[in-house]
């Protein structure tokens, strides 16, 4: 990905006639993103999901059902089978007679919270480690690059499971574990770009002016990396959401008393043959969220890296 060069090049200010509005690379990227219908639809889905998560207590009040209470009288049939979607329970109930709709909406809170917070932590760590490794080089780089390789190639789910099971599942623990196993992909890209950028003349100039390594890394190098980091971070969110759901599904995620999509799907596994809604709605919510983030990530990449498309076009023309 060579997003950086483009985003970094300053617009030739003053060259344009007065009548033409000078637009920054970010404004250009934004206008490309807005024209991308799939990306905008994904963004709307994500915003709706966030709104639903924020308004979860409102839905609980509206239906009169709490996410944890068991409505054994109304929520289960005489044979103890979950009740299907209807006026009383919008998306049906689960095996304990709890309201599946309210639980799904509360589950969105966990998924989004863990997904976004873990991504922020991983992005921060990845950027700092990648910058330090790429800028300093030598033994520092050797050690950090090896660490990146190890984290990238090790059976992280197994280690995550072991960590969670010995330390005990909790929201904070799950988030930290996911962040710990996610920073490496960002660090690798940042390191590679830093290695290339630090050879440029303006970095040499900054150094000869007496700028500290800290200043060079964060003021001179980092701005060039903002575009690829945004793309990677957007694509890291669905990965973190899947990670959290998988841990919860295995019973090693957040506290089982908190409704989360992974735990709901684990419970549904022995019931979906009598209650399809029990599987379909949490699975649908999870897929919709990860799909929306992935599509948005692709859209952001296309918007920030218009060159890839243009190169694409010339190659097509050159093809016999």
């Amino acid at each position, binding site marked *: 990905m060579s997003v950086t060069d483009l985003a970094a090049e300053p617009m030739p200010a003053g060259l344009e006639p007065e009548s033409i509005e000078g637009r920054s690379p970010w404004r250009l990227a934004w206008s490309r993103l807005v024209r991308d219908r799939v990306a905008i639809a994904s963004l709307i889905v994500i915003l709706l999901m966030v709104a639903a998560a924020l308004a979860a207590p409102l839905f609980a009040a509206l239906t009169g059902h709490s996410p944890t209470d068991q409505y054994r009288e109304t929520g289960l049939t005489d044979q103890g089978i979950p009740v299907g979607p209807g006026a009383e329970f919008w998306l049906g109930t689960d095996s304990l007679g709890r309201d599946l709709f309210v639980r799904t909406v509360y589950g969105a809170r966990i998924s989004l919270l863990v997904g976004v917070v873990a991504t922020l932590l991983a992005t921060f760590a990845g950027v700092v480690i990648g910058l330090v490794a790429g800028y300093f080089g030598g033994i520092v780089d050797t050690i950090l690059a090896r660490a990146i390789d190890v984290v990238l190639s090790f059976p992280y789910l*197994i280690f995550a499971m072991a960590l969670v099971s010995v330390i005990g599942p909790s929201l904070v623990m799950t988030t930290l574990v996911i962040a710990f196993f996610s920073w490496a992909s960002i660090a690798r890209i940042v390191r590679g770009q830093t290695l290339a950028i630090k050879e440029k003349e303006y970095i040499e100039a900054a150094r000869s002016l007496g700028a500290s390594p800290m200043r060079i890394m964060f003021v001179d190098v980092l701005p060039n990396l903002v575009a690829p980091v945004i793309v990677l971070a957007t694509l890291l969110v669905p990965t973190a959401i899947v990670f959290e759901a998988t841990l919860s*599904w295995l019973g090693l995620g957040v506290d089982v008393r908190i409704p989360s999509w992974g735990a709901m799907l684990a419970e549904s596994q022995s019931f979906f043959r009598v209650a399809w809604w029990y599987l379909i709605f949490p699975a649908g919510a999870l897929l919709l969220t990860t799909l929306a983030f992935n599509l948005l990530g692709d859209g952001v990449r296309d918007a920030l890296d218009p060159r890839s498309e243009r190169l694409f076009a010339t190659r097509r023309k050159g093809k016999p």
Partner: protein
Amino acid sequence: MIRFLIRRVVFGVFVLWLVSLGTFLLFFVVPGDPARSIAGRQATPETIALIRERLGLDEPLAVQYWTFLKNLFRGDLGYSYYNNQPVTALIAERIGPTASLVIGGALLWLVIGVGVGILSATHARSLLDRVTAGFVVAGISMPTFVVGLMLLFVFNYLLSTVLGITFFPGGQYTPLEEDPADWLRHMILPWITLCTVQAAIYTRLTRGSLLEVLGEDYIRTARAKGDGNRRVVVVHGLRAALTPVVTQLGVDVGYMLGGVVVTESVFGLGGVGQAALQAIVNLDRPVVMGVVLLAAFFVVLASIVVDIAYSFLDPRVRLS
């Protein structure tokens, strides 16, 4: 070549040692006493002390680790805390379903991923390419366990209740040597589960890599000297384009173990992955150590094989 191999093997052994140390320490830095959990809630302190002594848990940490390493060199991974079964026997007993799953799944995702990736690249921008891109995003967004649950839902509930026939049983494992046809029937859904996400990633990777290679000058040379399209793509293009795919395959060996745990759990295959999950939940250290070392061994082996494969794929790469 020989010197390269020796260096890689030495480094591989070093990595394995690090992994063994890390896993070993992980179980000690955390609260939780295996002796206490084996003894049960109402055990007297004497019983617990006796169990600790029998397991060698009363000895200093360094001595315990040294004993572990000594036994490891004799091919003895210790005994499960729970049923006293030798860990090597436990792994040997359960390797069948895991090997079937991993080998079949990996073959399937390579064939689908590379095959569809090539078609997509050679027909870039066509309808086929767009449809593929849609499937790729959907595939990448799917958590492995959700794929498994949905397959069970469709094949073991929807189709079997509508048609009254069960095409693929939703669980258990039949050894290949007992009944190959039944083995296949049992493995198809797990294979699809394990390979969906990976096939999507490999499709994207192959397409991108091949498109880039097809824009190179030497490809134009090949076309100019009159090579047919098929020869250009397969002989000249694919060879170079497969390098990133092979790199990814090396990285994915570690990932695969996580996917294996999930897939085995969905379908109840009773392989090494499920044993690992059980052992992790039970804090059964010898079993966890055994499985993690086994996985790490394959990760290290894969990275060496990948480096050798480079030199075959790309004549510019010389092993040194």
